[in-house]
């Protein structure tokens, strides 16, 4: 087998999360108009402020256009062909996991996210979101003992309306961009996290997003609030079945960190990426932003992006508090016809703010993988520093990698460093490892893990192995 063929075979392994759960759903009709926005809000029995928020966003959205600057070359999406709300039918107001449809539990079991009591991941609380709604959140009571709130955002809207009202849209305004406006109008569920003053969250928090229906868009919204001197580590995971139509996913995540609070947000994204010809797959248009509001606050993004037909995502930090810290660690793997345009924005406002960006892009097949990042030093950001490192690895000879760093500085007493490199897995490197008894697949896997090591080191312990496995699965097929 020639190296090229073997590589093609390796990176083209089937997607193992592509199954569909047969379940009765409460689905509204296709299309989007003001009535649909009102219907979603009423289904969720929302207070008036949220309906207003949605309607304002909807009106702004109508006046906006899909962004084209990322040069992702996808056809105009038909927003009237999408179902904006779909929920599995189940007993109203489930009180415990026992009342959750066993089919749903089984689905999450199959995805490796056991929700049932005896099988739970120890020390990780999970919020499981299926299509438009959260079906279960584990370890809620234990977290409540520490004053930590971890629940679906729908529940938070009803239970903690004043918190939601105060913070929602305060980091990502509803007119921030086309997809954020759409999300603000129709978001159906997502996770809500509140860590009170002085509390270090006693366990990892995790949300798992599952798209099940082919014509349903998933618009989740996550809000994380860390009060003074608190800390939390949060992870999200995502999968979807294989459909030959495109599925839209447009999420918004907002993080607020007050004085000396620290939030670590990690993502392992494995949405269905379409087949080798580029048919089907998830369009992943995500707006994630953290606001370091307080003095010495810290927000750290880590992401492992392996799925989706198109990824458009720039988890960002607004470093407003003096001495606040922003971090972005990213591994993005694209294969076949996947396109990823991902990176970050670090907006330095406070004095002595620091940011670090480490981005690793791996492109295989005929995919294209771009890093796009903005580092901005505003006038007030005296003595602030940024360090960026963007490395690309090419597998095969048909993939492409690009780096677009944007740098704006209005503060002479600040420093910005940018390093970039591109490498290719060469036949000589593969042969060298093979000639030491290391199999072809393992050789590629070792090189890719080595390339990503700096980023994997940033992931929470429990998930670093998962991320390594996910890459191995994408590239190697023999794991799992």
């Amino acid at each position, binding site marked *: 087998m*020639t*190296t090229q063929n073997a590589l093609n075979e390796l990176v083209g392994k089937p997607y193992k999360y592509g199954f569909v759960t047969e379940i009765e759903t409460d689905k509204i009709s296709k299309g989007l108009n003001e009535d649909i926005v009102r219907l979603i809000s009423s289904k969720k029995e929302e207070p008036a402020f949220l309906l207003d928020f949605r309607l304002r966003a909807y009106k702004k959205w109508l006046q906006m256009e899909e962004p084209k600057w990322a040069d992702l070359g996808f056809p105009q999406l038909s927003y009237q062909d999408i179902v904006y709300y779909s929920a599995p039918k189940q007993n109203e107001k489930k009180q415990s996991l026992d009342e959750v449809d066993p089919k749903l539990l089984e689905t999450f079991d199959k995805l490796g996210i056991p929700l049932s009591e005896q099988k739970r991941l120890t020390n990780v609380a999970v919020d499981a979101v299926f299509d438009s709604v959260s079906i279960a959140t584990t370890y809620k009571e234990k977290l409540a003992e520490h004053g930590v709130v971890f629940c679906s955002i729908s529940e938070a809207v009803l239970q903690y309306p004043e918190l939601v009202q105060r913070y929602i849209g305060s980091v990502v305004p509803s007119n921030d961009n086309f997809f954020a406006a759409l999300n603000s109008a129709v978001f159906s569920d997502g996770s809500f996290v509140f860590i009170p003053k002085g509390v270090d969250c006693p366990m990892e928090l995790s949300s798992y997003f599952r798209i099940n229906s082919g014509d349903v868009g998933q618009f989740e919204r996550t809000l994380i609030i860390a009060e003074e001197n608190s800390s939390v580590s949060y992870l999200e995971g995502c999968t979807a079945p294989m459909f030959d139509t495109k599925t839209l996913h447009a999420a918004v995540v907002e993080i607020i960190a007050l004085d000396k609070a620290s939030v670590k947000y990690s993502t392992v994204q494995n949405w269905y990426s379409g087949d080798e010809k580029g048919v089907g797959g998830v369009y992943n248009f995500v707006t994630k932003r953290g606001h370091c509001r307080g003095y010495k606050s810290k927000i750290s993004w880590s992401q492992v992006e392996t799925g989706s037909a198109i990824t458009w995502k720039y988890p960002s930090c607004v470093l407003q508090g003096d001495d606040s810290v922003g971090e972005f660690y990213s591994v993005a793997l694209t294969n076949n016809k996947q396109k990823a345009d991902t990176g970050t924005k670090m907006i330095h406002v406070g004095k002595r703010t620091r940011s670090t960006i480490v981005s690793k892009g791996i492109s295989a097949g005929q995919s294209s993988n771009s890093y796009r990042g903005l580092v901005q030093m505003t006038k007030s950001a005296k003595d602030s520093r940024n360090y960026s490192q963007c490395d690309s690895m090419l597998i095969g000879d048909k993939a492409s990698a690009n780096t677009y760093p944007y740098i704006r500085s209005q503060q002479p007493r600040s420093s910005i460093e940018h390093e970039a490199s591109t*490498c290719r897995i*060469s*036949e*000589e*490197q593969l*042969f*060298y*490892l*093979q*000639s*030491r*008894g*290391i*199999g*072809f697949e*393992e*050789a590629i896997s*070792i*090189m890719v*893990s*080595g*390339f*990503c*090591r700096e980023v994997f080191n940033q992931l929470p312990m429990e998930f670093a192995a998962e991320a390594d496995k996910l890459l191995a699965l994408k590239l190697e097929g023999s794991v799992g």
Partner: protein
Amino acid sequence: MIQPEAKLILDISDLHVSVEGQNILKGVNLQIRAGEVHAIMGRNGSGKSTLAKALAGHPAYSVTSGRVDYLGKNLFDFDPEERARLGLFLGFQYPVEIPGVSNIEFLRVATNSCRKENGKDELDVFEFEDLVNDRLKIVQMDPSFLERSVNEGFSGGEKKRNEILQMALLDPVLSILDETDSGLDIDALRVVSSGVNQLSSQTNATVLITHYQRLLDEITPDFVHVMASGRILRTGGRELALELEQSGYEWVDKELQGGGDN
């Protein structure tokens, strides 16, 4: 050391190999038995490295005809990694750098792949550390090399020591060392040679590909072969290497022109 009854490790008959459509090896014959040290000499382009790479299974080298039996089996039935696990070791002339992959992790994965094949237990991180620290002495390498990326930023001499360290860990049956002496100063050459000598035994065999007599001053070969135009033109004892050192390769041209064959 030559023992006529010793086990036959490698049996090459009439081997033809081409690279990018060009015939490089044009009928190589060679037998190697346990306990023997062979030196292959010859000018640049005579086919020495091609022979080494073809035996190790480099994908760019295609075998067009001929046969190679390794430990009684058809060598070409095996992928490069399988050949390695069966005890075939190639010491590279130009070891590649593999950024991001830590040397010790690489050495451990390689060692365990070979151990597994041979029915031995895989070594955990701690057991392996003990083993590798012991083997480091053979090549007088500093343990700090273990923490660095494979060959990255290593000097020429350090890369070659790292090759011999791998040989020491994998415990091969047949080691083919492709110009291991090139780019070494005299001290490094002694360290590397002494490493090879320590690893040499009655159950394994070594092939040294070299241009220079000075390596053969350190490692005494039982046979010296001279390659030219893709064949082994002449075979002798160590005195053949001395002869080459003195009179060069001019006689090779004469023999080739005269259609001489051995």
